[in-house]
């Protein structure tokens, strides 16, 4: 709106093209335009001139912002206005990163994880009996006590692994990989501590959540391997559902990532089923702000397990490669983008959830590289911890590995 006093139709036209003329003021001008060829010509020229200005806004170069930040004391070397090299900027950013709360949170997570692992394995690590002296090579045996009429050729593997061996000497008997399970006998008689075998309970519980694992399989799978007599396996305690809720729906992201990891313990067994979705995880995150995000994640992977228990009056060690489907809640802390490294965003994540056999936790540290406003790729290192019980005893599997994937923000 204007004060309405124009010295000429030409001045009024200028205001019209600048979007400063009201509808009331425009009407007489349109009438004038329709009847004045000179004014029409002027309008065309003014429009053409206006077009010359369009798209000429200038973006300041990145080094100017860097100089501003340094000059404002937001950089390490405040006061300096000399653009820095990529390497020195990297070390400056790394220095700043070490001073952030996020770094200490990540460090606390790692220390807590290590302390928990140490505490859970304290007895096995420091109070274990003398370690076995058996060779670490596999060899055949002729005198193995196979049950009943079957006498298959089995491989006996001596394993020196004091963490998981609470008695002095054990012999692991490994059936072929396709069976997905191995068992072990030793010749030290121990009083039975478990109730008698309850077939219904046994079958219903599907120990360790492995649907491929049935006692009858050993007798009837055509592989001719041993039967586990009177085996009592405690039912698994289902993991409680883990959920997170978000209050708002502002910034979300989908992440599809793949991972590969080495396992402790390692069992030399291939999984029976190898689905396409193995070692994949999908997460939905809500960003409270660019630093903090919560979400949920689901995934699937093989988890190698080794655990001991009583089989009648004998102690047996089981190993298996369990196909785990896991889900749980996720918290992610994203650090400030590192401008001199292509605006990559370091992050650390903590996942707490569960599988059918026990709680499952993951922590990771990595970075996202934005490719556009909505798409980024991510990569990082990951540590996983699965806790489970068998016949009242605690066991765990830990995995260390790498992960990479695609992030879609919306």
């Amino acid at each position, binding site marked *: 709106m204007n004060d309405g006093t124009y010295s000429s139709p*030409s001045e009024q036209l*200028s205001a019209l093209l600048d979007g400063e003329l009201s509808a009331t003021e425009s009407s007489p001008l349109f009438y004038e335009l329709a009847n004045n060829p000179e004014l029409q010509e002027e309008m065309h020229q003014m429009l053409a001139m206006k077009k010359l200005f369009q798209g000429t*806004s200038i973006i300041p170069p990145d080094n100017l912002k860097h100089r501003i930040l340094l000059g404002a004391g937001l950089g390490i070397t405040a006061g300096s206005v000399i653009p820095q090299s990529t390497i020195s900027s990297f070390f400056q950013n790394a220095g700043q990163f070490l001073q952030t709360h996020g770094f200490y949170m990540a460090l606390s997570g790692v220390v807590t994880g290590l302390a928990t692992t140490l505490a859970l394995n304290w007895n096995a690590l420091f109070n274990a009996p003398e370690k076995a002296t058996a060779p670490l090579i596999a060899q055949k045996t002729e005198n193995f006590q196979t049950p009943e009429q079957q006498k298959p050729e089995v491989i006996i593997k001596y394993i020196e692994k004091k963490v998981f061996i609470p008695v002095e000497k054990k012999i692991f008997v490994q059936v072929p990989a396709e069976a997905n399970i191995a068992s072990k006998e030793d010749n030290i008689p121990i009083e039975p501590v478990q109730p008698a075998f309850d077939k219904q309970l046994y079958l219903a519980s599907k120990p360790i959540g492995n649907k491929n694992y049935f006692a009858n399989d050993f007798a009837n799978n055509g592989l001719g391997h041993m039967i586990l007599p009177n085996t009592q396996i405690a039912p698994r305690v289902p993991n409680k559902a883990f959920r997170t809720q978000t209050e708002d729906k502002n910034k979300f992201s989908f992440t599809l990532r793949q991972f590969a990891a080495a396992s402790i313990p390692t069992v030399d067994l291939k999984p029976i089923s190898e689905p396409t979705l193995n070692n994949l995880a999908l997460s939905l995150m809500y960003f409270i702000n*660019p630093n903090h995000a919560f979400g949920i994640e689901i995934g699937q992977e093989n988890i190698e397990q080794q655990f001991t228990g009583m089989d009648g009056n004998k102690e047996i060690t089981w190993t298996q490669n369990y196909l785990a489907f896991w889900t749980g809640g996720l918290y992610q802390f994203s650090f400030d983008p590192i401008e001199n490294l292509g605006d990559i965003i370091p992050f650390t994540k903590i996942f707490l959830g569960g599988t059918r056999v026990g709680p499952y936790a993951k922590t990771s540290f990595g970075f996202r590289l934005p490719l556009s406003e909505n798409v980024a790729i991510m990569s990082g290192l990951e540590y996983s911890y699965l806790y489970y019980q068998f016949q009242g005893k605690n066991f765990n599997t830990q995995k260390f590995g790498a992960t990479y994937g695609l992030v879609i923000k919306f």
Partner: protein
Amino acid sequence: MKKAYKTMTDEELYRAMADDNAYGRHCFDEIYLRHSSKVYTYCKKVLGDSDLADDLFQETFIKFFNSSKSGREMTNVGAFIFKIARNLCLNEKQRKHHTFVPLDELNMPYYDDLSDSKEREQFLQTALDALPRKYREMLILKEYLGLTYNEIADMLETTMATVRIRIYRAKTKLRELLVPYLEQ
């Protein structure tokens, strides 16, 4: 819980900038993202000297950042940044006694056509430099930065009528220079 700075107003960001932490830095980044292009364009167009414009642009944002520590209340952050930039540019002009070439003495460079954006930019800059400062600045604020007459009047502490008339005169003078090209 701290608010996501993408959704904050300029004034909220300005207040949060006073925090000496990463959040304050993020808030400054957000304000920089919103206003830097316009302020930089202003400095470039008003000064015409690339290096000098860079220096004054840098100084503008450093002064702006430092002002957030004073705890002052801010009602229009964009206008405040422009005011800093404008004062710096005017001081610099007065200090260096920039020479002004009258329009009738100006030798405009000749271009076959202005389809190339770089040539068009250079041509426009030459034409703008030839305008009296009081016209040039208003035209820059209007055409490059898209400010309304009212915003320009507030920023330059003048009336809307003055803004309207000066912009019209600036356009008229510029049109005289550009007529051969406008008809292409």
